[in-house]
């Protein structure tokens, strides 16, 4: 095993080009691109749980998919155990697929409605040649047991399952290849609160038993605080703050993080609202504001925020923040 982080993301940039309309072509307008992820660097140690939070449309999901090479990225690279993932082909790529898996948000949409649970799980084992054909059934049952489903589920179709049960099957499918990294993309946000807790506990248990590294994408801060050791806050395709979860919660530095934290509902109805609540919607990622993308909504914006793009700088022990307030 090489030294260094398990998963290292360096300078990742993903943009989606918009189809040019005929009038644009005639006018010779440049093709417009949505900047979904901009120059993001992150690393993940073995067994580490990283939370990725931000508003809808900030690029969390795209980043997660780009890490797994499900979306093409324009710049940057992902290194898994020190080896670049981008150039992988054939068996090497298949081997990476066994190392990193994803669990999706919508539990029903993430399962092929035509296949039974058993067919879905045994297909993984078959494609990756993980066990002899006669042992597949046994492995499938063991996987179901791992995620807390009884043997009866083998013959069921997704339509016959509840959301939570579907999500368990989705987790079992990801675990079938015995990955080292799991990206959980809003994996509990579509579920009822009581089921959310069950699935979260399942993920936490599995992570501890198997020493999984996990990137936990969510917009629910309390869930992230419960699960994650470190936290990255995204705004419009960039990471604006990164640090140990408790440190970020106790001492948020970026005005956006402060606003997010103060917007959390509290149990007693009171809140720590201090006037830093966000107004308005995030700008369109098609035309990002110059300088710091957050400045139009920022209560503490200064004149140079309009022109200078802030870099991530250390503001504490392994705590970074991309804001001009902290030079």
């Amino acid at each position, binding site marked *: 095993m090489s030294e260094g982080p398990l998963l290292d993301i360096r300078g990742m940039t993903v943009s989606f080009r918009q189809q040019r309309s005929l009038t644009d072509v005639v006018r010779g307008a440049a093709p417009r691109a949505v900047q979904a992820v901009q120059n993001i660097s992150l690393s993940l140690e073995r067994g580490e749980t990283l939370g990725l939070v931000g508003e809808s449309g900030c690029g969390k999901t795209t980043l997660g998919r780009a890490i797994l090479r499900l979306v093409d990225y324009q710049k940057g690279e992902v290194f898994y155990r020190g080896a670049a993932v981008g150039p992988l082909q054939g068996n090497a790529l298949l081997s990476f697929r*066994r190392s990193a898996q994803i669990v999706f948000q919508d539990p029903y949409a993430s399962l*092929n409605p035509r296949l039974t649970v058993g067919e879905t799980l045994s297909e993984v084992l078959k*494609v*990756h040649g993980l066990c002899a054909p006669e042992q597949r059934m046994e492995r499938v049952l063991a996987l179901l047991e791992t995620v807390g489903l009884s043997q009866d589920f083998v013959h069921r179709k997704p339509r016959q399952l509840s959301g939570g049960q579907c999500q368990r099957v989705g987790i079992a*499918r990801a675990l079938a290849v015995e990955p080292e990294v799991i990206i959980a993309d809003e994996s509990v946000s579509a579920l009822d609160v009581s089921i959310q807790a069950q699935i979260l506990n399942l993920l936490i248990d599995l992570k501890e038993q198997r020493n999984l590294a996990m990137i936990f994408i969510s917009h629910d801060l309390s869930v992230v605080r419960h699960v994650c050791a470190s936290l990255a806050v995204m705004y419009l395709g960039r990471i604006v703050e990164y640090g140990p979860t408790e440190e970020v919660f106790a001492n948020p530095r970026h005005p956006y993080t402060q606003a997010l934290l103060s917007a959390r509902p509290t149990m007693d109805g009171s809140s720590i609202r201090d006037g830093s609540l966000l107004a308005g919607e995030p700008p369109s990622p098609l035309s990002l504001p110059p300088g710091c993308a957050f400045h139009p909504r920022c209560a503490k914006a200064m004149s140079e925020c309009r022109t200078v793009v802030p870099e991530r700088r250390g503001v504490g022990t392994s705590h970074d923040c991309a804001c001009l307030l902290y030079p």
Partner: protein
Amino acid sequence: MTGAVPALSRTRGFISRRVGSPKPVLMAGILMVAFWVVIAFAAPWIAPYDPNVHDYGAVLSPPSATHWLGTDMFGRDILSRIIHATIVDLQIGVLGVVLPFVLGTFIGLIAGYFGGVIDMVLMRLLDIMLAFPWLILLMAIIAVLGPGLYSFYIAITLVGWVSYARLVRSQVLVLKSSDFVMAARALGYGDMRIMLRHILPNALVASIVFSMSDVVLVLLAGASVSYLGMGVQPPTAEWGVMIAEGQTFITTAWWIPAFPGVAIVLMALGFSLLADGLAEQLDVDP
């Protein structure tokens, strides 16, 4: 796959549990189509007369106890000819749909899944096909190939794939970005596996429903083409041919063209009901 792990294959009662009991419309469609299938295969035993034997003592006789649906200008029994023609028309209806279905599904799947230049070329080809009136195109192709049933099947395949390609492609585009296909890609499944096992089975429902109503169109196209002398050749009994032969007698012997016409309508109705019933059944339960 299911073959390798028998215990994982579907349990009994799976169909009924998944689809539920058939609704009346679907039931009526199934019964009517089944009726024609039985007629088609039992023709030699249930037809009262030989369909091609001329009986000059009973030329142009109206419906009666001996000839229930009358006789034509050669004294051939209309009922027997309709019964014997059933298998020909059923074959036209089914093959004339299955062949375009297969070609169109293949093209739609390739175009939708791979996108880019392949998609562009195939879809422009489709636009060109759509720009022609399809019946004219059909007859033009048959005219080039020469009259006969095989020409008809080739022509209907070349003309009819368009609708299926469009239907399947639009479904594939939606399914391609669905989470379960994304999961299949994350698991490193190959393109063939993803296309055939994960996308295609989920993309076919709309086409299957459409194909049932397409049977009606193809049946009428087959009858039209035969009527014009470009399809089934006399003396083989075929409903369109029978109408064509009988039209000169329409004022004196209406039964010659009328009863084959009724047969076409009844077979078309059967497939229409089947289509509506399937749409209803599968829509709530895709």
